[in-house]
């Protein structure tokens, strides 16, 4: 029997009291989403919060102020998210902790580095925020690899993370199927939503006997297609994984959590509505494979993939060149304007730092 006045229980209560203390707990604080009669401002963006956890909470190694002034009316998009190269830079020192995973970035820049592609996006009513440069140290913890097969309605996306030292097993809300493999242990995972297995977003985790784990996430693939592709994979010599099916083209290989530049655009209430990023090594595919459906679009003249996430937000991904990938994240409240927002993205010539 656990003592409800155990000190650790008291500390648990105190901690959660403190976390909740800042929450908006007024009865009239928020207006229901998706009610046809509601005209009040909407607060939302679970996925933005998740993505912003990375951008805002982490690794502000270089911070460059960009235009803060409010922009024109909603009817006349005038805002450019591109940072200006002439404004003063402010630097936030990242404290050294001695930990192995601290952020290393000491250079001051007023823009993206030379050779890094950057883009602008025009959205009336939003204010562009800081350009955040995130760069972890050079330690490679996990490799990633992304593939594309087919096109249009038959397109399949596959993303793998290659990890070491993970214990076989599954945490999370999945319907799990044990797979028969000769090497180690493998599971097919079907995400659940309110207890019911979802019909997309299938995953497969293969824990090899040598301690290497291949964690596959898929988009547009059936259970059988994923199982066939993943269990037919073998270690490569020049690449982490080689798939047996030649229909899959490896489009990006890199490290988990690579270097990135990100700029958020916020509404007058300070809520991030759009986020523009360039990331190395195909990192944006990690978001794209979470989409229910993915279609072809064009971004700044380049072929791109655009998908809608479970919360209604839209993520668009494209190969920006030079090993960099672009990502445009549009929050659910602007989803209906996504066509125009995507079309407004333009490449920006930056002088670099």
């Amino acid at each position, binding site marked *: 029997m*656990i003592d*409800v006045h*155990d000190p*650790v229980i008291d500390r*648990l*209560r*105190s*901690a*959660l009291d*403190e*976390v*909740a203390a800042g*929450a*908006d*707990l007024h*009865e*009239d604080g*928020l207006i*229901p*989403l*998706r*009610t*046809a009669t*509601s005209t009040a401002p909407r*607060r939302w*963006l*679970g996925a933005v*919060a*998740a993505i912003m*956890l*990375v951008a805002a*909470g*982490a*690794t502000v190694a270089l911070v460059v102020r960009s235009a803060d002034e409010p922009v024109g009316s909603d009817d006349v998009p005038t805002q450019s998210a591109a940072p200006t190269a002439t404004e003063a830079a402010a630097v936030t020192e*990242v404290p050294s*902790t001695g*930990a192995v995973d*601290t952020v290393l970035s000491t250079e001051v820049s007023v823009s993206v580095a030379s050779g890094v592609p950057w883009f602008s996006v025009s959205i009336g009513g939003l204010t562009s925020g800081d350009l955040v440069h995130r760069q*972890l140290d050079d330690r490679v913890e996990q490799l990633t690899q992304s593939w594309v097969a087919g096109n249009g309605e038959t397109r399949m996306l596959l993303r793998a993370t290659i990890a070491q030292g993970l214990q076989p097993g599954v945490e*999370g*809300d999945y319907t799990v199927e044990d797979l028969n493999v000769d090497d180690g242990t493998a599971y097919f995972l079907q995400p659940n*939503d*309110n*207890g019911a297995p979802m019909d997309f977003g299938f995953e497969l985790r293969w824990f090899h006997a040598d301690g290497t784990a291949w964690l596959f996430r898929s988009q547009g693939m059936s259970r059988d297609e994923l199982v066939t592709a993943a269990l037919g994979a073998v270690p490569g010599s020049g690449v982490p994984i080689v798939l047996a099916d030649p229909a899959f083209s490896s489009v990006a290989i890199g490290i*988990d*959590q690579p270097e990135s530049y990100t700029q958020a655009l916020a509404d007058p209430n300070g809520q991030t509505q759009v986020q523009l990023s360039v990331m190395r090594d195909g990192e944006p595919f990690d978001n794209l494979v979470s*989409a229910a*459906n993915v*279609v072809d*679009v064009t971004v700044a003249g380049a072929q791109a993939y*655009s998908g*809608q996430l479970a919360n209604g937000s*839209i993520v*668009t991904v494209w190969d920006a060149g030079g090993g960099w990938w672009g990502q445009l994240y549009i929050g659910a409240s602007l*989803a*209906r304007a*996504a*066509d125009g*927002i*995507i079309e407004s993205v333009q490449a920006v010539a930056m002088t670099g730092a």
Partner: protein
Amino acid sequence: VVGGVKLPMMTSTGKPSAPAFDEFYRAHRIDAVRWAVALVGDRAVAEELAQDALAAVGARLPSLDNPTGYLRRTVVNRCASWHRSHARERRRMHRVAAGEPTSYTQATSEMLGALATLPYKQRAAVTLRFWADWTDEQIGEALGCAPTTVRVLVHRAVATLKVEIEP
């Protein structure tokens, strides 16, 4: 179709009247946010997840015998999905934020860190039991397990927290 992507459409089938939805929303929003705070340990994320859960429940309101129970399950499941989807991002956060000051007291930061080490069901069981004041039966219904299993989860969670948290 917007941005090349089909948008979710609202249909009239099963859609509750706005007054009923608003009443349910206002009656349960505070609880939903508190439950989500317990499950994710981040108030901003909790508010968004609670908002999503309330909207999901509201869309099915007329067909539910026990909307509050359904809301409990929905919050628990949405938070589980958040943990699953953003496990990597959270690990990244923990790494890069190591040693940096946080907005919480040290005791709270330590407890949040300890909670983050727990498997999701253990975390849900211990926080919902002792902070949100759910019964074992309510927790079991939301997690899809028996009340006896809930008590085991709570016991294991408290044991782990005692190890993780310095007295």
